[in-house]
């Protein structure tokens, strides 16, 4: 007698949990790498938009507009199949997600830098600090705190969008799920993709909670939350 279909489908998922966890690992690594790249490019870009001038500022602004105006799917396909920036799907996906995230992170930081009132910068200059020094010691620490909520949002978006790397065959979480299903070994489509969804949910939930903690931890006593 064949086992009940429901049982067998969940059993299939459980049996392949190790593969799904490997995919989850790739998703987490891709998220981390992309967010990091996005920060390394996006923070200076935001600062250039606020404090820069001339061609550099215009170039940064234009790059941002272009990146924000292009679908991520297009960016990743263009980089991988069109420009072949790297033979590694992981590297290509990191660049695509990182660039796109930089374009959004730059706006988070731009707004945060602009929200610190001018008077504090002036007071720092008045004690004899150079402009760069004053920005670094007075404006940036406050702007970083104020970026946390926007950053939290960006983090979850990147995390979920790593699934787009499926189109270049990177073995991240969704790809693993898809392979399990298409391998033809199972009819467990619903069970597999529900499990995949649940894992994404747990990841975003944990990320959000961690950043809530960061927000609280770095908030300024008596004042606004971070």
């Amino acid at each position, binding site marked *: 007698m064949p086992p009940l279909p429901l049982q067998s489908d969940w059993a299939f998922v459980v049996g392949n949990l190790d593969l799904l966890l490997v995919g989850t690992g790739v998703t987490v690594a891709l998220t981390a790498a992309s967010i990091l790249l996005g920060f390394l490019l996006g923070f200076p870009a935001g600062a250039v938009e606020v404090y820069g001038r001339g061609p550099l500022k215009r170039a940064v602004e234009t790059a941002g507009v272009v990146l924000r105006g292009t679908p991520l799917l297009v960016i990743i396909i263009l980089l991988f199949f069109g420009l072949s920036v790297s033979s590694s799907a992981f590297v290509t996906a990191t660049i695509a997600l990182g660039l796109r995230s930089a374009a959004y992170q730059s706006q988070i930081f731009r707004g945060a830098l602009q929200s610190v009132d001018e008077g504090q910068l002036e007071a720092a*200059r008045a*004690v*004899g*600090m150079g402009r760069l020094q004053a920005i670094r010691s007075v404006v940036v620490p406050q702007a970083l705190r104020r970026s946390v909520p926007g950053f939290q949002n960006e983090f979850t978006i990147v995390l979920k969008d790593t699934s787009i790397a499926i189109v270049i065959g990177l073995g991240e979480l969704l790809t693993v799920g898809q392979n399990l299903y298409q391998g033809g070994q199972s009819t467990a489509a619903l069970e597999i993709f529900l499990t995949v969804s649940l894992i994404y949910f747990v990841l975003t939930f944990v990320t959000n909670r961690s950043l809530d903690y960061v927000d609280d931890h770095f908030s300024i006593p008596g004042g606004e939350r971070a």
Partner: protein
Amino acid sequence: MSDPLLELDDVYKSYGEEQVLSGVSFEMDAGDVDVVIGPSGSGKSTMLRCVNRLTEINGGAIYLNGECVTDADTDVNELRKQVGMVFQDFNLFAHLTALGNVTLGLRKVRGIDKAAAQEQGYEHLEQVGLLDQADSYPAELSGGQKQRVGIARALAMDPKLLLFDEPTSALDPELVGEVVEVMRDLAAEGITMLVVSHEMGFARSAASDIIFLDDGEIVEHGPPEQLFENPQAARTGEFLSRLETTHEGE
């Protein structure tokens, strides 16, 4: 004969078409406390900001200890180490404690190590009566306390001259006294101060000279007794009587 501590020599400043300072000249000796009064928009803040070059002048010159500080090749950061400023809106660094506000300049500008900077910071907080609030953040302080931290922050750099731009006008009336008291102490200690303020009690008791600025020009400049009791220019008298009526209700 030694140079005056501060000298403004025929200073002009305009914003576009608008002439804000039109040939301002005066001198201060070390230990002087000069109080600048004048109507809103007369150029008082602009004049102060020209002294530490938060604003650049268009004509004339400013000298500190006989040295011209408005040359193009003057190091503005060097100048600002010698000239402290206290702002109307305090402008405290919101992410730092009172002690952090006072020590930031010592550490970043003077390059003093943390422990030594803190030691000096505590001294200056004590000077303004806020030793017990050293670990409080600006948002946890009252307006009067914030301004006293602002004063301590300026004092910490050991400036030759302190500029005050309406230090009490953002304060609730009951908090003005504590700030004026600190300023009086500083005046008594011989610290040179150029103060924009309409706090008449302070002006009468602590000022060496009163400077009445109107429409970008110094209309009258003299010791408080003379300027308040026996103003020479009609405009001074008018302004003072208006000031009295507006301040009566407070």
